């Protein structure tokens, strides 16, 4: 069996535009005054067909429209992409088709259109449930707009998740616990809860480097918030199934699980990445990030950079890095197959003694404490 089948097969479509750039965000997103959607439809289609030809005989488990702000896409654009994908690959009966949406009033008006196009899951970037913090995060919507948009989404879709960013400037543990309870009372069956990350090359990154980003929680406070988040969500029946993702069992994002279970995925659009098994060899794919340059490259016949074959070590590392994020843990048998050797017993016992990992059958799982310092755990597992 090809290794990717352990994880499934998905399609990621990147929409690189936003109405405004958020100061913390390092995603490939651009603010432009005019977008000719027909050009994008054409380019997405061309790319899809080109890559589809390399990957016959696959069953598509999921599609994800990510961004940027895909809720700026015209429903017809979304429909065209879904239709093209359906022409190329048979869809799994339970295919998940997600779209990331910003919670403004304009996008809410398009939700019905997305549903008609075939989208069956919305992931909404609400980010905070108080207006002051939304402002500090540079968001252009208010809490009440977000709640309204969320209600519209609920009316159109069975599956609606939303994102919050915590460990924000000036946020206390108490304030976050409170906000989280609010969020849980709104939530349906899925939540993404991210600790604020200061990314290089963003406005926050610059401010941080200049010492101007004040009142960020200390690492210890942030760790307390993380552990409290795990607890509270557990008690509400939305346990963490991944470092930052919570779901009622069965309601996990299937698309994202393809990544963490190290399956194959096609990445289409500016800056999109993919992992594809071709002739039994796993490759990584990457596209030019600038929207104009990407369109041009598609026109010239190839919307991605040349595929790179992943070495055995690359695969071992990626599999571990992704797998350890999941509550279900790392499949150690698969690790053994990929790497040709099992994990060092002394390393494992050391990490076990420290309470960072536990063995559950043939899986290795990070404990709640271990997940809070997962990078250290991974470094330990990956250095000999």
């Amino acid at each position, binding site marked *: 069996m090809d290794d990717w089948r352990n994880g499934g097969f998905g399609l*990621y479509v*990147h929409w690189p535009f936003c109405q405004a750039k958020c100061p913390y965000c390092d995603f490939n997103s651009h603010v432009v005054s005019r977008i000719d959607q027909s050009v994008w439809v054409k380019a997405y289609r061309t790319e899809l067909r080109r890559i589809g030809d390399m990957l016959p005989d696959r069953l598509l488990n999921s599609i994800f429209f*990510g961004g940027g702000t895909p809720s700026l896409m015209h429903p017809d654009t979304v429909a065209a992409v879904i239709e093209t994908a359906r022409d190329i690959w048979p869809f799994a009966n339970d295919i998940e088709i997600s779209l990331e949406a910003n919670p403004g009033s304009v996008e809410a008006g398009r939700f019905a259109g997305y549903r008609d196009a075939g989208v069956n899951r919305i992931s909404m970037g609400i980010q905070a449930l108080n207006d002051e913090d939304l402002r500090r995060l540079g968001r252009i919507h208010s809490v009440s707009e977000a709640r309204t948009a969320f209600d519209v989404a609920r009316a159109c879709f069975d599956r609606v998740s939303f994102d919050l960013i915590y460990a924000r400037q000036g946020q206390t543990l108490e304030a976050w616990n409170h906000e989280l309870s609010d969020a849980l009372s709104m939530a349906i069956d899925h939540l993404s809860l*991210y*600790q*604020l*990350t200061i990314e290089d090359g963003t406005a926050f990154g610059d401010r941080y480097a200049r010492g101007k980003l004040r009142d960020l929680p200390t*690492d*210890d406070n*942030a*760790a307390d918030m*993380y552990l409290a988040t795990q607890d509270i969500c557990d008690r509400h029946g939305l346990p963490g199934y991944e*470092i*930052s993702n919570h779901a009622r069992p069965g309601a996990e994002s299937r698309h*994202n699980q*393809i*990544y963490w279970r190290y399956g194959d*995925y096609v*990445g289409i659009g500016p*800056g*999109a*990445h*993919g*992992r594809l098994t071709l002739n039994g060899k796993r490759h*990584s794919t*990457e596209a030019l990030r600038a929207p104009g340059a990407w369109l041009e490259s598609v026109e010239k016949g190839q919307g991605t950079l040349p595929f790179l074959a992943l070495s055995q070590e*690359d695969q071992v*590392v*990626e599999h571990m*890095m*992704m797998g350890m*994020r999941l509550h279900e843990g790392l499949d150690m048998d698969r690790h053994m197959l990929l790497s040709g050797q099992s994990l060092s017993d002394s390393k494992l016992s*050391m*990490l076990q003694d*420290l309470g*960072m990992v536990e063995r559950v059958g043939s899986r290795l799982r990070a404990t709640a404490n271990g*997940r*809070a*310092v*997962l*990078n*250290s*755990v*991974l*470094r*330990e597992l*990956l*250095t000999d």
Partner: protein
Amino acid sequence: MTELSKIRNFSIVAHIDHGKSTLADRLIQSTGTVQDRDMKEQLLDAMDIERERGITIKANTVRIDYEADDGEHYVLNLIDTPGHVDFAYEVSRSMRAVEGSLLVVDSTQGVEAQTLANVYQAIDADHEIVPVLNKIDLPASECDRVAEQIEDVIGIDASDAIRVSAKTGIGIKETLEAIVTRLPAPTGERDAPLRAMLVDSWYDAYLGVIVLVRIMDGVLKKNDQIKMMQTGARYGVDRIGVFRPAMQVVDELGPGEIGFITASIKQVRDTKVGDTITHERKGAETALPGFKPSVPVVFCGLFPVDSSEFEDLRDAIEKLALNDASFSYEMETSAALGFGFRCGFLGLLHLEVIRDRIEREYNIDLITTAPSVVYHLFMKDGEMLELHNPADMPDLSKVDHLEEPRIKATILVPDDYLGDVLKLCQDRRGIQMDLSYAGSRAMVVYDLPLNEVVFDFYDRLKSVTKGYASFDYQMIGYREDNLVKMSVLVNDEPVDALSTMVHRDRAEQRGRAMCEKLKDLIPRHMFKIPIQAAIGGKVIARETLSALRKDVTAKCYGGDATRKRKLLDKQKAGKKKMRQFGRVEIPQEAFISALKMDD
């Protein structure tokens, strides 16, 4: 060959940064020795490290032709010298090759500690001294005051000091004239047996060992068979030349001239600075008085971060030693750091320079252990041992007593900061020897233990005086004191590379400071880590580094995999730069930084 009366040889000496190299630039440029288009600032500072730090490390010689106002053509040999105290040895031997010195004093700063040190050396070498007041283009320039200071503090006549801007070129002509009219011509006998002073030698990738010589008597020609009078080594001369400042081959060098020879000498170590070169046949009977050899005073361990690079390190150190006879090395093994070298240096800047060069030119990441001085251990059985490394401290029951090196430190400082300087010296176990004033500047002389100075004394001095103090020192001998070895335990494991010698009365304070420092320097681990300082078996200070609690990437999806992987790889590489002690990783810089005192 140049007639003796038409030769002038001189060194340019000054406190660091007073403008020696810039003055040399102007002298070279205004005499047309180097074309304008080939000029650059501090032309003679050719080493990367000199250009980067803006300082001179190696003395440099240049031959200049000058047509003076008297209509005669003169040959001037100038030696630009380093100002930093670590390289004082370069200055002293350069002075032995010339008859006069331009004493450059920054007219915005006045007399500083190395100004004094250099003047005394020049006087020792019987030099005619021409004072030059530099940087007169700056508004803060105070020539009259500085001239007065030179007379008061140094006691030489400064009434005819030349006022110069080495930057703009004011006063350069006057300087050249003063060199010709005020400095003496060299003496020597053309017909006497050859006596050439071996002033310096270094390794050149193309030509091999290059020897800088000053001819005292006789004539040196290509193909001559020569003999080194001290070492007895014999060579055939391949090449003779002068520096302008590029090498230019000449037919011969006569009395009073300075130039270079090459002679298929394999290693710099085969030459001995201060040696006398003569002809193999009909050679001179008596050698010139030699130089005192330079002695390393600061020792530290250099270990490769990646222990598989030990052989590369050996290679790098051997190559650097080829070019720098003032640094010594021997193999060292450390339980904590594996194989490396214990190296001796002239001072801390010298140490830094060598370390930087190994890291950059040879691409080897290094762990540098705490610098230490050489202690004299007097054993109960009457034997005296030199201790270069605190980790080697023998069983105390066998030691009768211990002596440490002391220095005489001279510090010049504006009155306002005097209190801070005195406090610093007292804190470092200093004994005041003298305190006098020159205008609003105080000159303090202290007897200090070298071990309190090698490390961060100069940094501290700069910081407490906002950079206004200047400092110079010389060794004055050994004295007994109550010194003990303090060891450091991290997670209950002793880390030998962190052992230091401290005065018993200060051990607790130093131990506490060190544990606190280490607590900041060692990254948090997944578990908590005790850090202790101990004397013998007795713990004198303790800190606990709490466990790491947050280290996770919040978002990681398909698109991030590659980037997050790179991040992890980078962290893994960072991990490699650390040293493993039991379960604890200590970053390489900790071995030095842990000892810095911010008091």
